[in-house]
């Protein structure tokens, strides 16, 4: 009945590095982009959504690893979706209750975490094959990768677009208003992706061909 084959889990450091750089959900896999562009007009908003995704990713990965032996394999995808929906709803309610000010700005995008391809693909690709502890670290790495991506983009856009970081004015003018405007989000992500590719080239590695949408076709 258990069709799942177990493979030895990679070491923790690999799991975290993979999430942060090699398979960074935003800059590499180009998954979960909607909020990455939408809420990163300031570090504060990026941080809020990053933390929400981080928590949901870790909890969902762990939940999937916990129940992988008791669910009927045929309905595992709907069950995964429901698990994510539960954690997202809980996150949504907690944030709305205890952080009303920030929630007002990112509320819709917190709800949309449920449609994030990255979360379910980690559950399906990793948690189904591994135990709770490696699944935790895998979720941790991927979530952290997303969080860092959000912070990086948020800092870049807030600094250049508004001349401030976390609301503290650094310079008294707006160096490049464009990056904070709707269109600027796309430019920022494009530039950071190019930067990742450049780092890869410097390290002597071939950057990924960049077809996009790594998880969309399964």
């Amino acid at each position, binding site marked *: 009945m258990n069709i799942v084959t177990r493979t030895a889990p990679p070491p923790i450091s690999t799991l975290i590095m993979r999430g942060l750089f090699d398979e960074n959900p935003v800059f590499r896999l180009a998954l979960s982009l909607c909020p990455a562009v939408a809420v990163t007009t300031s570090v504060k908003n990026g941080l809020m959504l990053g933390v929400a995704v981080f928590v949901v990713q870790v909890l969902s990965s762990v939940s999937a690893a916990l129940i992988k032996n008791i669910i009927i394999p045929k309905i595992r995808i709907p069950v995964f*979706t429901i698990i994510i929906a539960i954690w997202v709803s809980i996150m949504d309610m907690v944030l709305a209750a205890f952080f009303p000010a920030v929630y007002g700005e990112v509320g819709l995008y917190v709800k949309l975490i449920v449609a994030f*391809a990255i979360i379910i693909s980690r559950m399906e*690709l990793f948690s189904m094959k591994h135990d709770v502890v490696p699944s935790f670290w895998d979720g941790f790495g991927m979530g952290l990768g997303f969080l860092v991506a959000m912070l990086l983009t948020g800092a870049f856009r807030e600094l250049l677009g508004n001349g401030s970081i976390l609301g503290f004015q650094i310079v008294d003018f707006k160096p490049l208003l464009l990056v904070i*405007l709707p269109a600027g989000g796309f430019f920022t992500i494009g530039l950071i992706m190019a930067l990742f590719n450049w780092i890869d080239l410097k390290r002597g590695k071939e950057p990924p061909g960049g077809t996009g949408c790594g998880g969309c076709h399964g």
Partner: protein
Amino acid sequence: MSTPQTAVDITPPSPREMMRITLGLTIVCLLASAILGGFYLWTEPAKARNVAAREQKLISQLLDLSPSAEVQEIRRYLLWRGSQLKIFYLTPRQLVQFDASGKLLATTEVPEPVREASAPAEKDTWVEANSGANDEDDFRYVGRFFSGIEANQVAGYVIEGEVPGFKTWIRFFVAINSDYSLRGIEIIEHEEDPGLGDQITEPYFKNQYAGRSFDALLGIEVTKDPLPREWRDAVESLGDETGFSEWIVKYADELPSHPDIHAITGATISSVAVTDGVKRSLGNFRKRMDLVEDYL
């Protein structure tokens, strides 16, 4: 979310398996609803409390209230029976009912539990039950304002208003003195574009309304002229460093030489929307106060 479908089995499952799947999914869904229901019951009161606390803090700031001051909420309701209209005001003490021409119809005492209720929904349910509305009537909550009471004296009012902005609704607070002159405005919720329309929350824009008299404000216009440097410094100084009472003493003479609101560069629509919203809320509030002032 993509992997799912490739894994779908082509052969139809047997009735026995179908039952298992249905049962399994039903249990999972019921469990999910139960968990979420539990969390909802836990977070909802906290949410209501936090939202109310945030509002109170904002109102105290806008009206410069001392910690001992009291903030009262007055909620408005309308009841349509066909084209017949009844108007309700819920003050902390009583529910006051008027007809469309402004004639007093009835007052009802508010019982203790409703007065203390933190969730607005509880108050609304009580008002509906006591409004005499039947199933065909259209009864609805339409808005609210607050009065700040300092040592048994009205220190000022805060009106909540909404106006369609560039993208969606802009929700704002307008704080006024008891002579209807404006103390300041605060944007509560908006979805204007970052970098452009979202500047309505910045002191250099929103403080331009401060200190205007009722009549001056109703006639105020939005200009696309750039905001003069020294006037910008003046309006930006209101708030953190200088309280409103100090500020108005210092700059009262300068207000008439800056009769217009200077629009945000690249966001004239948002600037005009806020100005129209403030004007309308203020005008309507004065008319409403003619009715309800004696019952506060």
